[in-house]
């Protein structure tokens, strides 16, 4: 039957497992069956580094077999329903309902509907309260778990922060609980006591109108605040020495080598820059050792260095020189994403492109200096133009520039500054001597809409309405015209919805359930996104989106403040104040700004 189904769908290799590096065990020989669930297509989920790390980490345990499940595309979901086949794990093909525990990765608010849809396809009750004894535990982690409230009705427990240590502690506790034969509630009481675990059913939010006014703790095992977990020493921290090599091409189809966590910069819009503090690096020696092993294990022809800001790695030049010695010999290309405009080296770029020339991406984020100071980006127009000059001289033809609109305190002039700056980059290319028959340059400005995120200095700000964003998008298109410049922007309604769930509270659970019932899924995919359905879901539940996009008062309790991400409220308020004044805050290496992450005494704070 499965064979018949596969014959009827596009890209059957999404569903067959069996890739080189996939882990197979005898189910009779393990005590714990865990399934990592990614609420998006195989190609997206398999590209996610956190998923890769935790899959291999859990499989190092003899008592556990960790498998994978992804959201099937429409054709597959329809075939499965037609043949009465519940959602299954790729390795064993056992239905998810047969597992001990399911772990969802929450990386994007617009994938929440897919979480519910995956549970539905697996025929598992969506709400935690309805999953009686015998159903698997459903947990979730990832950056969106930093505001767990919108998903609180559906998830038994959230894992807050980095998962390497806490996941193992949870599996230890699960093994003991399984032997004990106690009811499910006993396991939840135990994990509530593990640092970094949030059990939402032990907390009850209290609302008054739009606001959440309090949180009632319903169980003595539940801590007042759940503090995120981090791994203190990156060299001692587990990192897989193998990687699954998919059959079909996935989004990031290459070796991903994680250089460091956190970011020294502190851009005020950036949630990752706040929640992954403090900066902790892997040593060049450890990275080289990992690179060599991963190259031999996977056979990949490309390796990518991962971090929030590659060029801020303390010994980038000597390290990449050594890495390039290794990769050039093996005809492996090296990708350096997330380069900062103000500190990348020409020599490095030249050496990298010896193997393979890829496009170059820079993120000025805002079009005017005033705005870049507001968001604490800390780069100048001259940085941008000089980088472009270097890149064009080095033979690069395609440069992509990332910008945002809808930032706090933004004026029309700031918006118009985006195409103006992009045009200046084009002009830089015209200034350079041109060789005959040379291909012209192409600049792409990709402009996303800012969404205020929890645990950032902008968490109190009002989000632009869809109409405001559309007006700003019009300014983008009408300011300058050039054949060499393409301006892309995002669907404004999608950004609004993303903002609603980013800063949402527990009352959104009902809306999510309604939306899934109305057929919402794959909302991050434009061919699926249907704002009318969402409007209906909100209206049916009597919830207004404006409740969540509005500005928040500083004396207001924020729904995500039950989570302690390590950065203090005082620091966030101070940064908000500096943003209003357009004051730049020095980076973590220049000067400690007292955010609170130093309490861990790890990484950059320890030095």
């Amino acid at each position, binding site marked *: 039957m499965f064979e018949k189904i596969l*014959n009827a769908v596009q890209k059957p290799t999404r569903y067959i497992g*069996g890739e*080189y590096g996939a882990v197979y065990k005898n189910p009779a020989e393990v005590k714990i069956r865990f399934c990592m669930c990614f609420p998006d297509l195989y190609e997206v989920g398999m590209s996610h580094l956190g998923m890769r790390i935790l899959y291999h980490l859990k499989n190092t345990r003899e008592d556990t077999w960790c498998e994978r499940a992804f959201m099937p595309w429409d054709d597959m979901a329809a075939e499965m329903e037609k043949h009465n086949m519940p959602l299954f794990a790729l390795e064993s093909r056992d239905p998810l309902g047969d597992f001990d525990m399911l772990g969802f990765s929450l990386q994007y608010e617009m994938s929440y509907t897919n979480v519910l849809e995956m549970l539905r396809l697996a025929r598992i009750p969506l709400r935690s309260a309805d999953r009686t004894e015998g159903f698997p535990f459903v947990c979730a982690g990832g950056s969106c778990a930093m505001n767990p409230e919108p998903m609180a009705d559906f998830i038994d427990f959230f894992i807050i922060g980095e998962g390497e240590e806490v996941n193992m502690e949870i599996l230890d506790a699960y093994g003991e609980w399984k032997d004990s034969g106690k009811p499910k509630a006993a396991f939840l009481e135990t994990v509530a006591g593990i640092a970094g675990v949030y059990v939402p059913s032990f907390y009850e939010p209290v609302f008054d109108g739009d606001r959440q006014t309090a949180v009632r703790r319903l169980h003595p095992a539940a801590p007042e605040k759940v503090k995120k977990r981090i791994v203190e020493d990156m060299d001692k921290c587990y990192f897989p020495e193998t990687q699954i090599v998919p*059959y079909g091409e996935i989004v990031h189809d290459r070796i991903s080598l994680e250089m460091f966590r956190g970011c020294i910069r502190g851009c005020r819009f950036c949630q990752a820059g706040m929640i992954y503090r403090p900066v902790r690096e892997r040593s060049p020696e450890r990275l080289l050792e990992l690179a060599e092993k991963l190259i*031999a294990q*996977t*056979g990949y022809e490309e390796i990518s260095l991962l971090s929030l800001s590659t060029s801020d790695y303390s010994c980038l030049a000597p390290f990449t020189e050594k890495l390039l010695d290794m990769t050039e010999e*093996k005809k492996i290309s090296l990708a350096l994403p997330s380069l900062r405009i103000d500190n990348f080296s020409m020599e490095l770029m030249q050496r990298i492109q010896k193997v*393979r020339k890829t496009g170059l991406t820079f993120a000025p984020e805002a079009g005017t200096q005033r705005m870049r100071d507001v968001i604490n980006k800390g780069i100048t127009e001259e940085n941008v133009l000089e980088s472009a000059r270097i890149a064009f001289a080095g033979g690069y033809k395609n440069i992509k520039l990332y910008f945002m609109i809808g930032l706090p305190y933004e004026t029309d002039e700031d918006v118009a500054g985006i195409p103006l700056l992009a045009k200046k980059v084009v002009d830089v290319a015209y200034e350079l001597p041109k060789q005959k028959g040379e291909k012209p340059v192409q600049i792409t400005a990709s402009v996303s809409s800012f969404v205020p995120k929890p645990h950032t200095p902008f968490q109190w700000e009002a989000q632009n309405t869809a109409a405001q964003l559309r007006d700003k998008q019009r300014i983008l298109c009408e300011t300058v015209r050039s054949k060499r410049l393409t301006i892309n922007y995002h669907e404004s309604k999608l950004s609004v919805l993303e903002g609603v769930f980013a800063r949402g509270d527990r009352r959104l659970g009902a809306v999510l359930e309604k939306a899934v019932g109305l057929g919402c899924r794959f909302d991050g995919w434009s061919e699926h996104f249907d704002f009318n359905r969402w409007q209906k879901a909100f209206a049916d539940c009597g919830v207004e989106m404006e409740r969540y996009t509005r500005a928040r008062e500083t004396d207001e309790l924020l729904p995500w403040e039950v989570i302690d991400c390590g950065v203090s409220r005082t620091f966030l308020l101070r940064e908000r104040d500096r943003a209003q004044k357009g004051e730049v805050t020095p980076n973590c290496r220049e000067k400690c700004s007292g955010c609170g992450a130093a309490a861990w005494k790890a990484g950059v704070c320890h030095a």
Partner: protein
Amino acid sequence: MHKYIVRYSKRGDAKFVSHLDFLRLIQRAMRRAELPLKFSEGFNPHPCLSFAHPLGVGITGERELFEVELTAPCPALAAQLAPKMPRGIEIVEAVPCEKNRFSAVSRAEYTVLPETLPTADQLDAFMKKTEILTEKKTKSGVKTADIRPDIFDARIEDGTLFLRLATGSQANLKPSTVMDAMGEHIPGYTPGFCRYTRLRLTDAENKEI
């Protein structure tokens, strides 16, 4: 320059791996085996590999083959490569070879396991037709073509249907097109869901490539 012909099987779920993905899979397996690969010139250097004839998605292959160029002799090629393959792909043999005969490919032998086999009489009548017009999907769209000249043999053997079909650059016929045509031209016969296996590729004299 050291050329080798590698013969392999592609079974189980691996049959769902498309030709393009399979090419990439073999390249990566070669790198994992740390073979002395010869790389192509240019900005995107890739190992020098060529396949005898692509195998369609969903078809099992018993004796498929590709050629690889190495910079040094590698007598243990098959043994080195075998453990680097994902589930379902097995290396049958690897032999040194001066010049491959891939351009001589003109036929392929298949076994087909449909839900319902045609009877011997039905098959006989089908093969006795001088012309079998059917819809054939090509790159430029769906065309009606006579497929009879491209069917060299069709008989029932051990409960499966054996087919010998034109394969290669001159003429090419997919086994699924033949099964569709049987459903269309044999009165009262519906093959239902079919499993396909390509047994081997041959030249015009039915000699294995």
